């Protein structure tokens, strides 16, 4: 591949490559070109090759499709394309045929033959693989008519599930590196910062700090050497949007980092990525090499005097390294302990040089903003939180997956319309947003709009975008304990309130969930939470008590039930469970009597059995074995 030496050469290439992927054009995801389709290829079959679908035999599907197409002699008419995440993980693996815009769900390698012979050869769609709306059993073939996709607006995920990200050509076809070209040849440093500032793009890593302000500050900070850092240490359990972008559209992040470098006057960028993402590490290494070979990164980009190189630094499994100053220390090969602020990272960051540090999703939003302008970005979302946000929907929800929605949409719409409601017809109890730093939002507050301020105001936070839906079976005290356990593990130990305080909080929660808590413990939880929040050094400690505080606020009755009545209302806390046998269902089969390891169930054949509560060790073996659903746990 030869180097691209000018802006016009890049435009020429774009038109050439755009023609090659024009078949994927839909009104929702227009391939940006007025080129005419070229060649003999009539269909593109897009196969999701990201983690979720891949684990459920994604690669086997690709291989089967390729060999089936070859068998039928269709190689010149059909291209099989490996893409990034489609977002809809629940009914994966997903396959989409373009330009017909037909989506197939729950595809297996065995289906390849039928897809090829029936659809690709015969023109007859394979209806049994269509998405079936669980609410009305309706079959839906077009992606954007599936309720999951209807209300989504894709900016950061614009290319995920559309292009083969391993081919830089396809990114270039989608206007890739045009924003960098514009930033180099048509804009001054200050103009770039001002544009990003005007768009009010706020940090998608959770903090919500305006990216443009950060860039401008770093630009004005004195010093010859400056750095751009991309925070790809996605440690929030339950969030995987950054991973999806890095795999499905890595060049959008590389391009944005170079734009940032151009804006602040840096010639070096570092992506700090967690070691738990080996597939994405490989993809980034490969993508950086590709971009360098084409002259889109490295020395004299696009023939200009601007040079920018990007390297990777691997994390080593420490949640605290998502905190910017801890990340800086870790990137310098040290223990990932946070630094005191000020000085700000923009003044003294990596190697104590001015540094702009942004999150993956934030960077992915930058190229479209440069090309389409601040007004366009602000036309989406709300005034104080413009644009979109990606959420990882998970937990007790029907449509697990990645969704990108305009800010300001209500939580209820995300959960009920896009997420398809709760699994198994159960009742929703709460939504956890923001991971271990966030809080639990109860059902009656679900009509609040999703934006930085609204989530903060109800005691949660945007965080990186994890959205875990909890139902009536989830015990909120247990959920708070889960997060506190996480924090205790991940506290770096530098400052006492976080190191010792969170441990004490966990001990109190353990006491409560084993039935030993008192009402005084609830007061202690609250006052200790306040101390940890107000005296910890970094964001991790300052927000660590959020899960406790928010559950105490909205689900106090559950705490009271645990400490006063010694009951776990949802039955999740094993130690407090109480097993009993329902009179009207027990037929006296004696299975439970035999299976009980401590012989605490008594009863004759064909007579009602009884559990001796004093002897019961709450193992649940009886309930697992009962064939008549006669044993319940409370």
């Amino acid at each position, binding site marked *: 591949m030869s180097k691209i030496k000018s802006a016009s050469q890049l435009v020429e290439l774009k038109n050439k490559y755009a023609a090659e992927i024009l078949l994927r054009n839909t009104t929702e995801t227009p391939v940006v070109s007025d080129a005419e389709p070229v060649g003999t290829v009539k269909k593109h079959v897009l196969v999701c090759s990201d*983690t*979720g679908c*891949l*684990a*459920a035999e994604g690669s086997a599907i690709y291989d089967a499709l390729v060999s089936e197409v070859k068998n039928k002699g269709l190689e010149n008419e059909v291209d099989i394309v490996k893409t990034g995440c489609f977002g809809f*993980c*629940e009914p*994966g693996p997903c396959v989409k045929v373009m330009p017909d815009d037909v989506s197939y769900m729950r595809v297996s390698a065995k289906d390849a033959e039928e897809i090829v012979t029936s659809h690709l050869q015969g023109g007859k769609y394979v209806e049994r693989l269509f998405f079936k709306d669980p609410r009305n059993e309706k079959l839906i073939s077009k992606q954007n008519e599936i309720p999951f996709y209807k209300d989504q607006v894709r900016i950061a995920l614009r290319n995920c599930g559309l292009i083969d990200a391993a081919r830089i050509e396809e990114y270039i076809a989608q206007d890739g590196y045009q924003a960098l070209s514009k930033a180099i040849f048509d804009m001054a440093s200050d103009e770039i910062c001002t544009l990003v500032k005007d768009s009010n793009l706020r940090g998608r890593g959770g903090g919500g700090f305006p990216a443009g302000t950060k860039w401008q500050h770093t630009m004005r900070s004195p010093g010859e050497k400056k750095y751009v850092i991309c925070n790809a240490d*996605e*440690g*929030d*359990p*339950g*969030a*995987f949007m950054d*991973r*999806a972008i890095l795999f499905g559209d890595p060049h959008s992040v590389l391009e944005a980092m170079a734009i940032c470098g151009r804006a602040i006057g840096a010639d070096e960028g570092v992506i700090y990525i967690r*070691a*738990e*993402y*080996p597939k994405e590490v490989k993809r980034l290494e490969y993508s950086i090499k590709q971009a360098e070979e084409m002259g889109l990164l490295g020395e004299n980009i696009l023939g200009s005097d601007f040079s920018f190189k990007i390297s990777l*630094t*691997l*994390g*080593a*499994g*420490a*949640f605290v390294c998502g905190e910017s100053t801890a990340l800086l220390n*870790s*990137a*310098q*090969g*040290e*223990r*990932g302990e946070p630094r005191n602020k000020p000085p700000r990272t923009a003044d003294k960051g990596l*190697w104590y040089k001015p540094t702009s540090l942004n999150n993956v999703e934030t960077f992915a939003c930058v190229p479209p903003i440069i090309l389409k302008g601040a007004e366009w970005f602000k036309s989406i979302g709300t005034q104080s939180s413009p644009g979109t946000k990606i959420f*990882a929907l*998970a*937990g*007790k929800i029907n449509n*697990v*997956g990645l969704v990108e929605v305009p800010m300001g949409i209500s939580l209820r719409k995300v959960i009920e319309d896009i997420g398809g409601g709760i699994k198994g017809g159960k009742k929703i109890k709460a939504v*956890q947003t923001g*991971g271990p730093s966030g809080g639990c939002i109860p059902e009656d507050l679900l009509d609040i709009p999703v934006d930085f301020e609204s989530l903060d105001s109800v005691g949660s936070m945007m965080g990186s975008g*994890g959205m*875990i839906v*909890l139902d009536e079976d*989830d015990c909120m005290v247990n*959920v708070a304990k*889960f*997060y506190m356990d*996480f924090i205790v593990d991940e506290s*770096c130990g530098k400052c006492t309130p976080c190191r010792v305080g969170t441990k004490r909080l966990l001990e109190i929660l353990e006491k409560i969930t084993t039935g030993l808590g008192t009402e005084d413990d609830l007061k202690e939880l609250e006052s200790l939470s306040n101390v940890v929040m107000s005296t910890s050094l970094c964001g991790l400690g300052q927000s660590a008590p959020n899960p406790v505080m928010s559950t105490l606020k909205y689900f106090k009755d559950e705490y009271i039930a645990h400490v006063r009545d010694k009951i776990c209302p949802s039955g999740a806390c094993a130690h407090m469970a109480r097993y009993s046998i329902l009179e009207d269902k027990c037929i006296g089969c004696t299975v439970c009597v035999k299976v009980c390891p401590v012989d605490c169930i008594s009863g004759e054949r064909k007579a009602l059995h009884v559990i001796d509560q004093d002897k019961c060790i709450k193992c649940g073996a009886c309930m697992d074995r009962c064939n008549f659903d006669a044993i319940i746990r409370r």
Partner: protein
Amino acid sequence: MAEKNKCGQDCVQLSEIDVFIDKLEQQGSLEGKLIAILHKAQEILGYLPEEVQSHIARRLSLPPAKVYGVVSFYSYFSMIPKGKYVINVCMGTACFVVGADKILEEFEKQLGIKAGQTTPDRQFSLYALRCVGACGLAPVVVINEKMHGKVTLKDVSRIIDEYKEGDGR
């Protein structure tokens, strides 16, 4: 060669680490490269015993305590050897709310070890892992590179047997 005979396998592997450090040195300064070197060393040896930490400390002119401080800080680094198959049970929130804790317990029960330990025959190591980002497949168990999704309690013994008998494939 004589040295190789004296300390066997470990020396060969130490020299592999040295080759990596030499390469980094040629590319520029070794400053800030400690974590990258530890990653490489663990990739080669499977774990980071004290002698290796001291060796790296010598090469980088750092106090061994500093190296140990970094190794012990990060959960990715291990000072005990790992088994042939490393079973990672994801304990991210999405997996937790659908019962990952019970899956982990079942693995502990069946293997007779606790999370963080290795079986005496060095076949299996068991770990609780933070989110692997495959929440659509929760609960998830990752064994070496292979991902097992929507794992149920009943699957646990089948999965273990698969690796015992089929040698993992």
